[in-house]
């Protein structure tokens, strides 16, 4: 590839850009954060516009083929993430398009039950216990999310890329969108950045960090893909009856440049299909040249994997790649330095913040998680310092790399969105700035929407008294 990097600039003339909408709240990005934000703002009675780059909603949960909403119960088995996440799952249940452990098994330490779920899905056990994780149908989810935003009365722009905030000093007046209709503007009283990458930060002068060590999960990109036409029973029987050969085959696959393993779909009636999840090292997930390079690398490796399995693995004889993710699996990039900056210290503190707006089960850090069952998220972690009317409701929330590593997944982002959207509506109704929202009223409203929240007044001290940990943590640095 010819490298021809130039550093010059070109002058663009001033221009008049057409304003196509004026709304109360403008949400950029229709991933989990944006959905949570838009739906909860609209349900609380304000005008909402939601801008989405692709033709469907759901972000990584649909277009990224990361069809998993994990970590919903703490290790006691208590559901801590509910609200709009629960609603999404409930609507999937009604359509027979979701799979998760039975409620009576959540938190169970029973070895047989844990083994059963472990074999069923890697996501369904944590810390020697059964963990509530939902495996979802991507296509049905797209329809359900459309229904949710439609019912809430949100004006959606699909196939529209929200590229720049329209700034006036420390105030964001709206957003520029690019689409087949050309460059246009949408104005709003409150703007919510749910782009996943904090795309507005550089333009709005919002402070952020973006360092990620190479051994962190969040440093890697993914290009997930699905292989259909698999005789899963045949493959599973082969692995069960020939464990040594199966292991050897996985090793050989990796040696040949392929991926070694796959996940079963687990959804009702979908046993002809398996899911390949993966990690690609990169320098940055917001550098368009890196994104392009990883698309190529991922697609090459996908074909190698497919060729290997088709040739060698019983059950894959008639398989074919049915889909590679339309969206590259981005895991982390820019992280806000907001009004409160969550750090590794907060992952050892069991006292909830007075402005807690979400509780996240802490399950991936082994003993450290046993000592700290839940992570509390303050409202301030969604607020940029430099702008008076913007929220960050996505994985770009205010956090250091360690907090980000564990708490930037789909259900977390929905929770950020639900808090930001609800707060937007409360602020507009009360005629106050978003930084002066009545926190107690916000918490009360969130609780009414089914969001589990702690008693922030209660002093908490916690010491783990359960059995010693046997299984290895999900990830370690």
């Amino acid at each position, binding site marked *: 590839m*010819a490298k*021809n990097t*130039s550093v*010059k*600039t*070109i*002058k*663009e*003339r*001033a*221009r*008049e*850009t057409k*304003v*196509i*909408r*004026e709304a109360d709240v403008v949400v950029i990005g229709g991933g989990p954060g944006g959905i949570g934000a838009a739906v909860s703002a609209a349900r609380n*009675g*304000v005008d909402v516009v939601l801008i989405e780059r692709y*033709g*469907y909603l759901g972000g990584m949960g649909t*277009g990224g083929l990361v069809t998993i909403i994990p970590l919903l119960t703490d290790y006691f088995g208590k559901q801590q993430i509910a609200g709009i996440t629960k609603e999404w799952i409930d609507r999937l249940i009604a359509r027979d398009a979701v799979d998760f452990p039975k409620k009576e098994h959540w938190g169970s330490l029973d070895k047989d039950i844990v083994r059963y779920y472990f074999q069923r899905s890697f996501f369904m056990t944590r810390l020697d216990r059964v963990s509530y994780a939902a495996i979802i*149908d991507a*296509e*049905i989810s797209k*329809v359900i999310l459309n229904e949710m935003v439609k019912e809430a009365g949100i004006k959606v*722009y*699909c*196939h529209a*890329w929200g*590229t720049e905030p329209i700034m006036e000093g420390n105030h964001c007046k709206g957003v520029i*969108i*690019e689409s*087949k209709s*050309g460059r246009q*503007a949408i*104005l709003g009283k409150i703007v919510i950045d749910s782009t996943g*990458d904090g795309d507005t930060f*550089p333009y709005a002068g919002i402070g952020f960090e973006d360092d990620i060590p190479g051994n962190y999960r969040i440093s890697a990109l993914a290009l997930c893909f699905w292989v259909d*036409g698999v005789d899963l029973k045949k493959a599973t029987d082969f692995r069960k009856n020939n464990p040594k050969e199966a292991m050897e085959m996985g090793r050989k696959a990796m040696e040949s440049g392929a991926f070694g393993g796959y996940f079963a779909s687990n959804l009702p*009636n979908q046993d*002809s299909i398996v899911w390949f999840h993966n990690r690609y090292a990169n320098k940055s*997930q*917001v*550098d*368009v*040249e890196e994104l*392009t390079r990883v*698309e*190529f690398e991922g*697609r*090459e490796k*996908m*074909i190698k994997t497919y060729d290997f399995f088709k040739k060698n693995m019983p059950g894959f004889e008639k398989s*074919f*790649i*049915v*889909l590679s993710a*339309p969206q590259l699996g981005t895991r982390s*990039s820019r992280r806000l330095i907001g009004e409160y900056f969550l750090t590794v210290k907060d992952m050892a503190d069991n006292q909830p913040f007075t402005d807690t707006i979400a509780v996240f089960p802490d399950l991936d850090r082994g003993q450290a998680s046993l000592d700290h069952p839940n992570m509390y998220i303050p409202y301030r972690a969604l607020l940029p310092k430099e702008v008076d009317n913007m929220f960050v409701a996505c994985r770009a929330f205010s956090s250091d790399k360690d907090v980000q590593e564990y708490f930037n997944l789909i259900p977390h982002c929905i929770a950020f969105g639900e808090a930001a959207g609800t707060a937007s509506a409360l602020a507009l109704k009360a005629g106050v700035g978003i930084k002066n929202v009545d926190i107690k009223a916000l918490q009360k409203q969130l609780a009414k929407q089914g969001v589990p929240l702690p008693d922030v007044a209660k002093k908490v001290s916690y010491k783990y008294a359960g059995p010693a940990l046997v299984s290895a943590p999900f990830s370690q640095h």
Partner: protein
Amino acid sequence: MPIKPAVKTINEPARKTRVCREVDVVVVGGGPGGISSAISAARNGAKTVLIERYGHLGGMATGGLINIFPNLSDASGKQHIFGITQEIIDRMAARGGASYPKKADWGTTDPKIVDYYLNANLGGFYIRPDHNRDMKKAVLYTAVIDPEILKDELNDMVLGAGAELFLHSWGTQPIMDGDTVKGVFFESKSGRQGILGKVVIDSTGDGDIFVGAGAEFDSALDNKRRTAWLAFTTWVTNVDIKQYEDFKASQPDKLKELNAELLKSGGYPHFMKGILENQSGVLWYHSFQPQPESSDAMDVEQLTSIDVRGRKRALITYEFMRKHVPGFEKSFIMQTAPQLGTQGGRRVIGEYILSEKDMVSDEVFEDTVAVLANNDNGDISAKHPALCIPYRCLVPKKVEGLLVACRAFSSTDKINQYFNIIPPCLCYGQAAGTAAALAVKGGIPVRKVDYKALRKNLVKQGVNLPKS
């Protein structure tokens, strides 16, 4: 609360935008037109950049799930389209990623063979009635490809040619100097940037670049045409085809009744067996979305509502079939096309406007750069099985430094519908990319490219051209 449409504007101040590349040829859009533009420009020695909005190449052929290269031959079986189209099919066949009728069968009307292909994957595309042979069904040369393998193969071809790619990059506006295009602005996760080029090729499908360049264009579409509609394509998998076909054969009336009921409830009963032969059990739903009034594939509000409606319709269809039709009990929606199926839109006003009369003139233009089979025009097709495309259809009348190589080529609404699909776009791209490289080499405007030299070069690349 109702949202009020606004009519005001905001002022964006002047700014400096980073230029990240300076090259010979910038191609905007990685669909069929853009791919072959980039490949042929790069193979002819031009430093070339290709900008693509999604993470994969192929446009409608991959992300739109329109995995068909139809009409490569006329109804008599004579192949007209070669060049990069044939190269892609050869490469795909070598990887088990293509299926098409055997060469010996092209043009045959033997009912047994015709039936065989009608019953094959996406079978309807292999067959056309031949007006010269009492409307008997004839086998065409049409190829069906595996979109996932195609994505990888196109990456290889573009990079192998030496072009550079920017994926996840939306080329939005031309960089202008008077009437001359000097490059392109694009949006991506890296922010707004510019790429400068001596020639820009608009392969956006919708002429997104030529609008900003001030080129004249026509966007009128007759609402009854295919090109005025959008399509929402869906794959449903895990279907027991045999069981379904047994049901269809034994209870045709019951099936008719069910289909009527499905239509009434807002679903879409038409499908074909999808992808390749070994991928049975996958069905292809190409759900047209006719518009009540006029449709506009460039209006973001219409695109949004069509996407929402198409998705709902796919779900209604799937749930109905699963519940009521034998063979569908364990089916599920495998995927919906990541790209909405746009079929027509703006058409540039070029140096030559291709029109209906060109279908009957048999004119061999001195600047013919492609020959296309003309299979869908009844008696006209019978008498005039092929059509020549002049280079001037790719050259906008007013703007300099710009070529149009996609379905937005210079043509009337009526003729555009027959010659705006994947293989023609690959032909336009091959001509435009080659011409762009020749213009850069010769230091001349694209409008002034020597037709003889261009045609000679294209023939050398394996493009089928008549002697003028």
